[in-house]
């Protein structure tokens, strides 16, 4: 008697659904991505009860032919790829051809579609595959109702309506961030949540992430060969306590990739306090042949052909973008300034990463005013202590960043507060500087610049020998050159033992075995290790801290001005070595509001 038999199709699809259709949000992802792949210009999403009751996605894309409708619900049927060659250079969001089949197996699914040029639309019912004529102007409507109606076990795993909706919303945001050129709308229980007109990437980011984020973020724009990184990365002052608000897109596809996360984390290592997380929206474009997206059913992880190059590119591009200190660019908000949408400089003033048009921010610009007032009395600074001019506020913003005639960004020193803070006056108002923290960062950056490049290496008289596992052994062999570049000369001393014959001179007194182990551990996972740089930087930070001016040291105005000018010239001057802000701005608006001036 045969005990092995083929499973019925429905069961096969239900098994597949377990992987693809985890919750309403994954249904939304698949259907929404199909709509995007269909070349739509406008997509409307309607959810009911967090997507469990109904998910309806209507697009104006190319539509599906009557003859193809039945096939669309079959497993491994797709229009997106045809050959292995296509698979290797996937340009569409989906390609596996299993989503609709899986969804139809666990929910009441209907697809209504009118292919371009067809006389009328057709509707297919997922349960019995019956076709019927239907009315539709253009595009496709996918309607998924009663998710898991036939798999009650699965239904029990669903969370509350609010939670499921939040997941759907997150999924919608990912698509919306990736495709700012599409008009998108999301409604839940007949209430519109997002209505996004097509616009620039910046406008889209502002609409979805909030203007706070946009004003407190640095623009990233870098290109190297086939790699291109654009987007916005938050300044340390806008850091979060959790990892939400981190969006990384590879060729328009949202990914949560270990390698990329690591590269970003490293770029922030020097400026962000350890317990905080950055917020960012970054787009990496890369030759589709250089990345394998067929790693994970939900395609949330990718694999890069040249992981090392990608890692280094992302790391350096971000480091460069973040290095430019806010102190050097007037008009950007101070790192420690209160986060308040009404007060922060408008995004339109910043170099936009697509075009200057930015409707949401423009709508809010009416309230911003005081720049011009401060500008008016800025001219007095440096010459005399005239009474501050109280020129009436001009109701529009300077379109370009202030030029040199308006004085340096951090302004000129007024005096010292309790021997700890420097008070300075700049175009926007009052600048408060923590002089020790600022000086510390300046010295630290200077030390780092000097010591970058080939490290000094101390050879060991007695090699440090220690036992390692097979994985570390292999890592030591594979990354010999990288290790040598750091100053480690490592050779196997036995089947389970490594001998270290030289170490970086700066770390000559650190415990060798422990140091090398942590380097190898990182090299095993990621193509580059920052352990040595991090350790070295710790040392340099201590040196910088000891070298920096202490509180209660009286500084002359000339000395204070010199410090301000150095801050403007120093990279990452907005944070001290430990990630605390070095300066903050109290704008004239804030002061005026405090004293209820002109009210």
């Amino acid at each position, binding site marked *: 008697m045969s005990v092995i038999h083929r499973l019925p199709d429905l069961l096969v699809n239900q098994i597949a659904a377990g992987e693809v259709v985890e919750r309403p949000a994954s249904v939304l992802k698949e259907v929404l991505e199909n709509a995007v792949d269909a070349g739509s210009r406008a997509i409307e999403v309607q959810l009911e009860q967090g997507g469990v009751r109904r998910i309806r996605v209507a697009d104006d894309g190319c539509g599906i032919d009557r003859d193809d409708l039945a096939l669309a619900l079959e497993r491994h049927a797709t229009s997106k790829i045809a050959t292995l060659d296509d698979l290797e250079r996937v340009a569409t969001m989906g390609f596996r051809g299993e989503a609709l089949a899986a969804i139809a197996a666990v929910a009441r699914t209907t697809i209504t579609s009118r292919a371009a040029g067809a006389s009328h639309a057709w509707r297919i019912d997922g349960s019995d595959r019956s076709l019927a004529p239907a009315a539709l102007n253009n595009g496709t409507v996918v309607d998924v109702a009663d998710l898991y109606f036939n798999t009650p076990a699965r239904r029990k795993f669903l969370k509350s309506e609010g939670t499921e909706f939040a997941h759907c919303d997150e999924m919608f945001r990912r698509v919306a961030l990736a495709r700012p050129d599409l008009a998108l709308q999301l409604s839940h229980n007949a209430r519109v949540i997002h209505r996004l007109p097509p616009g620039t990437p910046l406008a889209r980011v502002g609409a979805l992430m909030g203007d706070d984020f946009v004003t407190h973020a640095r623009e990233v724009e870098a290109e190297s060969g086939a790699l291109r990184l654009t987007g916005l990365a938050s300044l340390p002052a806008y850091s979060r306590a959790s990892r939400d608000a981190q969006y990384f897109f590879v060729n328009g596809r949202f990914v949560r990739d270990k390698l990329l996360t690591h590269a970003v984390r490293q770029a922030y290592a020097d400026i962000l306090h350890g317990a905080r997380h950055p917020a960012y929206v970054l787009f990496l474009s890369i030759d589709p042949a250089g990345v394998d997206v067929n790693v994970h059913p939900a395609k949330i992880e990718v694999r890069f052909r040249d992981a090392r190059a990608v890692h280094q590119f992302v790391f350096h591009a971000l480091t460069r973008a973040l290095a430019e200190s806010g102190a050097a660019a007037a008009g950007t908000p101070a790192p420690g300034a209160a986060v308040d949408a009404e007060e922060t400089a408008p995004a339109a003033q910043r170099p936009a990463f697509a075009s200057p048009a930015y409707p949401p921010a423009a709508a809010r610009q009416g309230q911003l005013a005081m720049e011009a007032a401060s500008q008016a009395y800025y001219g007095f600074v440096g010459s005399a202590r005239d009474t501050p001019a109280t020129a009436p506020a001009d109701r529009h913003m300077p379109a370009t960043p202030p030029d040199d005639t308006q004085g340096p960004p951090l302004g000129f020193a007024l005096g010292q507060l309790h021997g700890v803070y420097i008070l300075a006056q700049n175009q926007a108002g009052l600048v408060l500087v923590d002089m020790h923290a600022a000086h510390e960062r300046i010295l630290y950056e*200077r*030390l780092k610049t*000097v*010591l970058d490049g080939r490290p*000094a*290496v*101390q*050879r*060991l*008289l*007695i090699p*440090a020998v220690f036992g390692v596992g097979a994985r570390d052994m292999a890592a030591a062999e594979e990354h010999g050159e990288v290790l040598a570049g750091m*100053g480690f000369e490592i050779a196997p001393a036995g089947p389970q033992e490594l001998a270290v014959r*030289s170490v970086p*001179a*700066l770390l*000559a007194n650190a*415990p*060798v*075995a*422990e140091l090398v182990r942590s380097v190898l551990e990182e090299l095993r996972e990621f193509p580059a290790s920052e352990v040595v740089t991090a350790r070295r930087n710790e*040392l340099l930070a201590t*040196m910088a801290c000891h070298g920096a001016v202490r509180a209660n040291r009286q500084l002359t105005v000339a000395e204070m001005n010199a410090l301000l000018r150095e801050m403007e010239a120093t990279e990452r001057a907005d944070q001290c070595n430990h990630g605390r802000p070095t300066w903050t701005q109290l704008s004239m608006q804030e002061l005026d509001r405090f004293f209820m001036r002109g009210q």
Partner: protein
Amino acid sequence: MLLLNTTRDALLAPLQSVAGIVEKRHTLPILSNVLIEKQGDTLTLLATDIEIQIRTATAGHQDGSDTAITVGARKLQDILRALPDSAAVSISLDDKRLTVKAGKSRFALQTLPAADYPRMNLPDGDVVRLTVAQRTFKRQLAQVAYSMAQQDIRYYLNGLLIIADGGELRMVATDGHRLAYAASTLDNAVAQRTEAILPRKTVLELSRQLADNDDPLEVVLAGNQVVFRFGAVELISKLIDGKFPDYERVIPQNHPNMITFDRLPLLAALQRAAILTTDKFRGVRLVLGDGSLKLISTNAEQEEAVEELEVDYHGAALDIGFNVTYLLDVLNNLSSEHVEWRFNDGNSSALITLPGNEQFKYVVMPMRI
């Protein structure tokens, strides 16, 4: 109850030789105390940190009754030090408080019972005894002690290896980057080769306390302990239990090139060059050409120091870097007029010795700058 009548100086000297090892911070309060024991006319002072114990015994204290008590070592020392030089001091014990009187000054100190004081017992087991002149031992320690590691996780490097082998006493210390070796001749050969690693603290304490004269120092090695007896002092220390690296293997035998330096001019030149080195790794380049040696250092600000010395050298040109601290250490701790410098190439170690003397060797690894 009167304990003793004496002078400030007579009490301070022995107290200072035991109190040096008392640690400032403790979890065990009694360890910050010193044990004072009076028996007959002998006054014994004893201090310990569990690893090391120092005891001094002085005779001639007729007054007072026999007793034993412990009291805060540092406080007692500070009090005595602050008294006039030859003030008469009397110490008595009343109701668990130790009273120190000198002239019109009076101090009452709290005490802890002597019975609770931890003591190290004299070692038993296989015993090797040596006797050397204090001066010889002290000088030999000075020649190697600076090379000991400090808080290395290879704990056996945080000490000094002594080897008694036939008629020779050898000492070796290394921190993994450089190694110092010194030997001396024993008057009475030992029957059996013995090795021991002295802890860093013991070495420093001995260097501090040994006198610069020919009075004898008795060394007794037994089990995992060592006893040093000199003058009125008896120092018992635990030994580091570990395998010291094979020092003979790292001392190069066949370096082809050799230069003889006058020690003090070389030391002075290095000290000047060291001013412009980077704080944390202190690299100095030695550039050797025909008949001249240049010492070159640069620091983080790209400032540069160049020192030039005339040398009797006509071999191949060489450019080699060192941590200048390692060179200054050895030159500072030698007393000879000349030193010999042997080397091979820029990647291998350098060997520093004394002319016509096989008893001192210093090996240092280069630094690639």
